[in-house]
């Protein structure tokens, strides 16, 4: 896009040129005519130079060099025009004049600018063909130019003639190069480079005509040429200023460009032929001229041949790559023509199917080795999917790609020996330049092993499921047994115990006066033992209940539970010098009955083991917290334990202290452990003998929505 300043410059030039064009027909004085012509030329050329220079100033680094050359070219052109105007006003018109030098610099600059662009955008492989193509076209076009100019060489001095011929030659060269480059680069169709090419084209045509007229001194009315000249200058200016050259990979334009490029040697040969014909028909031509033209034509022919050879080599390289891929691929690669007859059958396909390529190519369609029933079944499937009737046959394989859909399916191949192979087949359409279907390509991977592995996994899963069910049933049975056991413990063990205790006491009461110290001591021991056993039974019952019942989590609060527990135990603890430090905690999502049991066991534990501490402190609080889990702790400054024994702490019936020191059943912490585990959390203990113990455990946080 042109900037605002550039638009002002452009429109000013257009207005000035248009003004001149309007005035010219009504002016009859030759001097005035010359003046007006010079005004619109100068307006157009200086505008072009300014536009290009402004774009060059604002350009990104990758375009800077190209635009730099363009700016240099248009700049020289503007200078030439100004010099020419000065010459005309001074009535000093020698030939060659200084302005001719500057004029000639323009096509050279454009040639270099486009060359730079070419080197930026095109890879080395293509570079060679482009140079060849451009050279061929340039020589051919120039041979034509020479054929037109050389017969007129006696009309001027040698220098004059050289300069005259330099104009069309340089412009034609720049034009040919631009054309070939653009075709090779396949850029998106953009106004800018079309304008540049058109500008170069009109310039070269006008210069050619002018110069021929100048040589023959046969000036005609130049108004049309002058107008074209100015418009061409503006085209070049706008085109260069908005220069955009983007490569695209559009398949359509790819084909068009390729087609034109393939034609370029033919065009070159035709141009050379025309030149030769011109040589022959113009009888006045001397042998040197004839020789020059014929040499050019010969060069074009040779270069065209070289170009084709280079291309054939490139194709051979691609072909050898293709052959290597086809013969070494671990896939069956099978190509067919439009009707399905096999045209390529690679070695892996031979290996996989057992058929040789001789049996296949040109003789049968892939239906030969497809499972017939599967093809029939898929025909129905695809007919439904694509909403059109597809008959069982080769058409089933290509139905999807013909409808423009991707086609990758598992198929069953039947090998020559009748063995079946599972393959994953991807089908693609082969097309010609104009996009018509020329055939199909199928790439098939043997997936039999994967299929087998899949089946094995499924079998294993089924087995596993069966075993899990088996084990679960066994576990359920043993769980039921455990339940019965717990129940019978509660009934059958407690009852006799009650009997022992009751009758021992009754015995004591009824015969107490007769008892000696030993006898009453024995009775006391019996009572104490039954009490102890009762506690053990209750502990076992608690633990079995934790294990066998399902948990019913609700939002509950440990701080509240702990405060309740302390209040309940107030009378029992009134003689203890015990300090509680209980923090507020957020709600946890847990079974409230089990949380009660957990609090009871942990606090009873802390109270018990701090019993011999003079200033006992029990602390409860938050250790850590994330968005899902709450890590809590209960800490006492009591007896503590050796960290070496920490593993035994949570196992049932394991005691770290002698029973004489601290009473207990050894089940409480095991129960706590199971409660925490049931809620998905963990528990650990830290301790030091004589310093105290700390129990750290996690429970799931109750979310605010629960």
């Amino acid at each position, binding site marked *: 896009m042109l900037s605002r300043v550039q638009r002002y410059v452009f429109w000013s030039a257009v207005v000035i040129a248009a003004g001149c064009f309007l005035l010219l027909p009504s002016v009859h004085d030759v001097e005035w005519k010359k003046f007006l012509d010079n005004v619109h030329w100068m307006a157009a050329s200086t505008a072009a130079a300014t536009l290009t220079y402004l774009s060059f100033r604002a350009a990104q680094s990758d375009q800077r060099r190209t635009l730099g050359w363009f700016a240099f070219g248009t700049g020289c052109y503007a200078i030439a025009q100004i010099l020419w105007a000065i010459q005309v006003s001074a009535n000093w018109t020698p030939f060659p004049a200084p302005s001719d030098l500057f004029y000639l610099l323009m096509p050279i600059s454009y040639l270099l600018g486009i060359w730079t662009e070419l080197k930026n955008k095109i890879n080395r492989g293509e570079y060679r063909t482009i140079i060849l193509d451009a050279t061929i076209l340039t020589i051919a076009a120039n041979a034509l130019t020479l054929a037109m100019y050389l017969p007129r060489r006696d009309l001027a001095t040698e220098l004059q003639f050289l300069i005259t011929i330099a104009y069309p030659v340089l412009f034609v060269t720049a034009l040919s190069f631009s054309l070939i480059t653009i075709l090779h680069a396949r850029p998106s169709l953009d106004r800018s480079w079309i304008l540049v090419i058109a500008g170069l084209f009109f310039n070269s045509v006008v210069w050619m005509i002018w110069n021929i007229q100048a040589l023959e001194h046969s000036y005609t009315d130049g108004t049309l040429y002058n107008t074209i000249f100015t418009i061409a200058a503006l085209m070049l200016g706008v085109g260069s200023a908005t220069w955009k050259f983007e490569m695209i990979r559009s398949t359509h334009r790819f084909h068009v460009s390729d087609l034109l490029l393939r034609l370029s040697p033919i065009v070159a040969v035709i141009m050379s032929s025309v030149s030769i014909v011109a040589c022959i028909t113009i009888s006045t031509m001397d042998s040197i001229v004839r020789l020059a033209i014929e040499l050019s034509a010969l060069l074009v022919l040779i270069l065209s041949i070289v170009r084709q050879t280079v291309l054939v080599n490139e194709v051979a390289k691609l072909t050898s790559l293709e052959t290597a891929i086809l013969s070494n691929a671990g896939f069956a690669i099978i190509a067919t023509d439009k009707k399905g007859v096999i045209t390529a059958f690679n070695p892996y396909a031979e290996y996989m199917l057992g058929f040789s390529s001789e049996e296949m190519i040109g003789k049968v369609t892939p239906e030969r080795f497809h499972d017939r029933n599967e093809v029939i079944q898929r025909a129905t499937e695809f007919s439904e999917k694509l909403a059109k009737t597809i008959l069982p046959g080769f058409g089933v394989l290509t139905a999807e790609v013909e409808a423009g859909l991707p086609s990758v399916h598992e198929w069953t191949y039947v090998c020559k020996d009748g063995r079946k192979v599972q393959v994953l087949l991807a089908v693609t359409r082969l097309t010609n330049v104009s996009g018509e279907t020329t055939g199909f390509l199928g790439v098939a991977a043997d997936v039999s092993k994967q299929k087998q592995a899949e089946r094995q996994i499924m079998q294993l899963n089924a087995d596993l499921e069966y075993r899990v069910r088996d084990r679960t049933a066994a576990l359920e049975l043993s769980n039921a047994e455990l339940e019965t056991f717990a129940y019978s413990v509660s009934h059958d063990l407690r009852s006799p115990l*009650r009997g022992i205790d*009751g009758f021992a006491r009754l015995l004591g009461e009824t015969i107490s006066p007769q008892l000696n110290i030993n006898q009453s001591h024995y009775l006391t021991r019996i009572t104490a033992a039954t009490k102890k056993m009762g506690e053990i039974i209750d502990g076992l019952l608690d633990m079995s209940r934790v294990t066998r019942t399902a948990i019913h989590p609700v939002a509950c609060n440990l701080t509240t539970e702990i405060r309740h527990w302390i209040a309940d135990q107030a009378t029992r603890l009134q003689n203890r010098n015990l300090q509680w430090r209980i923090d507020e905690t957020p709600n946890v999502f847990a079974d409230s009955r089990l949380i009660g049991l957990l609090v009871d066991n942990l606090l009873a534990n802390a109270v018990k083991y701090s019993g011999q501490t003079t200033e006992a402190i029990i602390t409860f609080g938050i250790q850590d917290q994330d968005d899902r889990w709450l890590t809590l702790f209960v800490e006492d400054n009591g007896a503590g334990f050796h960290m070496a024994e920490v593993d035994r702490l949570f196992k049932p019936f394991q005691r770290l202290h002698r029973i004489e020191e601290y009473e207990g059943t050894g089940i409480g912490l095991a129960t706590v452990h199971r409660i925490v585990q049931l809620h998905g959390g963990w528990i650990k203990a830290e301790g030091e003998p004589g310093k105290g113990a700390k129990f750290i455990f996690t429970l799931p946080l109750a979310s605010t929505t629960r």
Partner: protein
Amino acid sequence: MNNSPILLIEDNPDDIELTRIGFLHANISNEIVVMSDGHAAIEFCNRVDRQTSLSMIVLDLNLPRVSGFDVLRGIRKNAATQFVPVIVMTTSDDERDVAASYAAGANAYVRKPIAFDEFQKAAGHIGLFWLNLNITPG
């Protein structure tokens, strides 16, 4: 104080004797009728005269022949005993037992303590409440 007999449904002879002694120690002097299996207990209830009636029934759950829950349902179905307070006194504190007992119509549920002194205390409380303070219709 309600002086009608107490029906004790219990199969364990130790517990029968200890319960008797427990009530005695708590100064409960009502006649105690003992039925040691569920079937006999239901038969007995069907024979009970509405006038003589029973002051309360102490029921163990773990009984031979007919379970404690069935006995309880039998008691509640019988017009003569439908309003008699039934105190389930058993060794289990399983929540399911507690819930099932209340569902079948129990008035109270007490777990038998192992220690005899506590057992005695429990018997005393039961007698005081259900025989002295509680009022039943009819």
